[in-house]
C-alpha cells in the first residue's frame, strides 16, 4: 500500500467503504463521531434507505476500484420497511461474497453486522477489527477495473418521466 500522502510515514490504513442506512445505522455511526470515538479515517460511508437495497455488484465494484473492504452496517431487525430485512440482507451478503470469489477476490473483504441507531461502540469495535483483519490480508492483488465498468447505463430523464407516469 502507498505511504500516506501527508508524508506522515507508516503504511496507509485499509480503505473501507461502509453501506449504512439513513434511519438506523447511519445515526449509530453519527453517534460514534458525536461521542468522539475514534476509528480509522480510511472508513467512508455511503448511506442508503435500507440494507436490502444494496446491489452485490456495488460491493464488487468498490473492491475492484480500490477499496480494501466493504462493511455493510445493516439495519437488521429494526428495519422500518421490511420485516424480513435480515433474511434479504443475508442473501445479498452471500451473493456479494460469491461475486468476489468468482472474480478472484477474498470473500473476507466483505463484512456485515447489524448496527442500531445508538450502536456507536459496536460500530467502532467492528470497524477496528475489520480494519485489522484487512491489514493482515494485505492489499488487493487484482488490477483495478476501469471506472464505471459493470455498471448499468444511466437512468435517463425520459425513463424517469416514464416512472412518474
Amino acid at each position: 500500500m502507498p505511504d500516506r500522502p501527508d508524508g506522515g510515514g507508516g503504511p496507509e490504513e485499509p480503505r473501507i467503504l461502509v453501506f449504512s442506512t439513513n434511519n438506523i445505522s447511519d445515526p449509530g455511526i453519527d453517534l460514534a463521531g458525536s461521542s468522539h470515538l475514534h476509528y480509522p479515517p480510511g472508513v467512508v460511508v455511503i448511506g442508503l434507505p435500507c440494507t436490502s437495497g444494496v446491489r452485490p455488484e456495488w460491493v464488487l465494484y468498490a473492491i475492484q476500484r480500490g477499496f480494501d473492504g466493504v462493511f455493510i452496517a445493516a439495519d437488521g431487525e429494526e428495519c422500518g420497511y421490511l420485516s424480513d430485512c435480515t433474511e434479504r440482507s443475508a442473501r445479498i451478503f452471500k451473493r456479494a461474497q460469491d461475486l468476489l470469489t468468482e472474480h478472484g477476490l477474498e470473500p473476507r473483504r466483505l463484512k456485515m453486522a447489524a448496527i442500531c441507531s445508538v450502536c456507536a461502540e459496536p460500530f467502532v469495535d467492528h470497524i477496528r477489527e475489520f480494519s485489522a483483519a484487512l491489514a493482515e490480508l494485505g492489499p488487493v492483488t487484482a488490477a483495478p477495473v476501469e471506472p464505471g465498468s459493470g455498471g448499468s447505463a444511466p437512468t435517463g430523464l425520459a425513463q424517469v418521466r416514464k416512472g412518474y407516469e
Partner: protein
Amino acid sequence: MSDRGEKARTSGRDRPHGNRIGVYICHCGGNISDYVDVERVLEAVKDEPGVAVAKTAMFTCSDATQQEMAEDIREHGLDGLVVASCSPKLHQFTFREVARRAGLNPYQYSQVNIREQCSWAHTDDRAGATDKAIRLVRGGIARTRSSLPLTPLVVDTVPRVLVVGAGVAGLRAALGLAQVGLEVVVVEREAEVGGWVAGLGELYPHGRHGGGLVAGLLDQVRAQPGITLLTGAELVEKSGAFGNFQVEIRQGASRTVRADVGAVIVATGFETYDPPAGEFGRGRPGVVTLPEFQRFLEAGTGALVYEGRPVRSIVYVYCVGSRQGPKAGGGNLYCSRYCCGAAGHLSNRVADRDPAVRQYHLYRDIRTYGNLEAIFTESRNRGSVYIRFDESEPPVVSGDAGAGEPRLKVRVRDLLTAGEELDIRADLVVLVTGMVPRPNEELVRTLKLPVGKDGLFSEIHPKLRPVETVVDGVLICGACQGPKNSSESVASALAAAAQGAAVLKKGYAELDPLVAVVDPERCDDCGQCYPACPFEAIERVPHQGREVASVRRAVCKGCGACVPVCPAAAIDLLGYTDEQIRAMIDGLLKETA
C-alpha cells in the same frame, strides 16, 4: 424543465445538469475546522469536474451563508449544490429549501457529513481527517453530478379519516379530527365501543370510572355530525394511495360500506396476557388475572368474599407475561407499563373496603413512574408488604391447605432479607398480567402494517415520528403500538389526529420522489420484483406490445429492495441510482495528494 431537456437531448446526453455545481464547506465554528484543514479541502475540490463555485464558510447554516448560496445559484446558474457540513439529519431540510427558494431543484443538492462522520470521529488525526473530508466531498460532487431533477408527486387529499378501533384512543382521535373539521369514519369490531376502559371501574390516577369516561366520550362523538360510527364492523379492503384511499368495511353479515379517506388511524389496542394452566398456579381456584380481579372488585361492595369464602389474604405476582428476559425463559421482553400502577391502585381499593386484608406484592421491580409513585406510597402506607424476588427463581403457587385455611400457598425467596424463603397463605393470588398484541392478521394484511418483533405495530421513529408508519397516510396510536395506560393512549391518539389533520387540512400532499423506477427497455418481465415488494407497488403494464414491470410512484416507499433482485439491472432507486453509487465510489477513492 422542458427547454433544458431539449438542450440535453441535442447535446447527445439525456442529462442537462451536473456541470455547474456550487460546493460549500463548513467550518462549523471550529467543530470541523479544528480537526480538518478546510482550506486544503477547498483547494482539492474546487477544480473537480462540474464545480463552478467552491467556498468555505464559518457556518453554512447561517442566514448570511444561505443568502450567499441562493445568490450564487441565481448568479452562476448553478444546477447542483453540495454542502459539506454536519449530518443530513440536521440540515438536509434547510439546504433543500435554500435550493428550492433559489430555483434549483432540491434533489440536485447533496449533503456531505464531514462533522459526525469525519472531524468528530478523527479528532486525533488531522491529516487523516482532512484526506477523508476531501474524499467525502468528492463523493458528494460525483453524486450530484449524476443526480436528476426530481419533483415531488403532488396528490389531492380527501378530507376524511378512517379510524380503526373505538377504544379510548380511537374515540379521542375521532373527536380531535372532527373538531378541526375533518370527517371521520370509525370502525369498531365489537358491538360496544370503549375497548378495555369501558369495562374497567375506577381508574388510576384520578379515580374516574372507566365506563363513565367512555359514555361521556360516546356522547361527544354522537354530537359530531361529521363522525360516522360503525360497530360490529371491520375493514376488509383498502386500495389507492396516501391522500386518497378507497376502503371497504363489512358490518354484520351483510352490509358493506365504502368510503374514500385521506388517511387511516389504527387504534386497535391490546389483549392481556393469558397465562397457560400451571403458570403460577393458573387453573387453581382463587388464582386470577389482573382483569379478572378488577371485575371481581367491581362486582361487590364491603368486605371481600370470593366464591363464598371471605378473603383475608391476597398475594400479587407482578410481571406475569412481561419482561420475560432470558432468565425467565424469553417471550415478551417489554415492560407493560400499566400494571404496577393498576395493581397498586387495586390494592388501595381493597384497603378502602377492608383494611384488615393482608396484601403481599411479589415483584421484580416496581415501575410506578411519575405520579404513579403516589399510588405505590399509599399502598405501602396502608400496610401492603412488598417482597422482591429474582426472575430466575419465581414464586411457586400451590394449594395444599387444610380445612378452614386459606386455599393457596405461595413460596417465595425474599431477596431483600438475605434470601429467606417465605411461605405465604392466600385466599386469592392475583397474576399481574401484562399487555400482549391483539391478533389482527387480517388488518395487518389489508393495511400492510409494519409489525415489530414484539408483535406490536411499529412507528417510523420512536422520538421524532412516533405515530407515523412507513406506509404513508397510515398512522398508529394507543396501546396497539406499545404498552400504554389510558392517558398515554389518549395523548398518542391526539398526536395521530394532529398529524393526520396537518396533512389533510392542506388539501394536498407531496410524496417523496426518491422512488424506484424500472427501465422498460431492459425489463424482460422475469417476475422477480413483484413479490419482492411488500407494499405491492410494482405492477405489470403493457409496453410496446409486451408486458413489463412498472413502479406505482405513490405506493413505492423507496426502500430499494427491488433493486438487487432484478437480474436485468433494470431497476434504479432515484437518488441512489447505480450510476450515482458507482460515481460516488470513484469519487471516494480518488487520490488526494
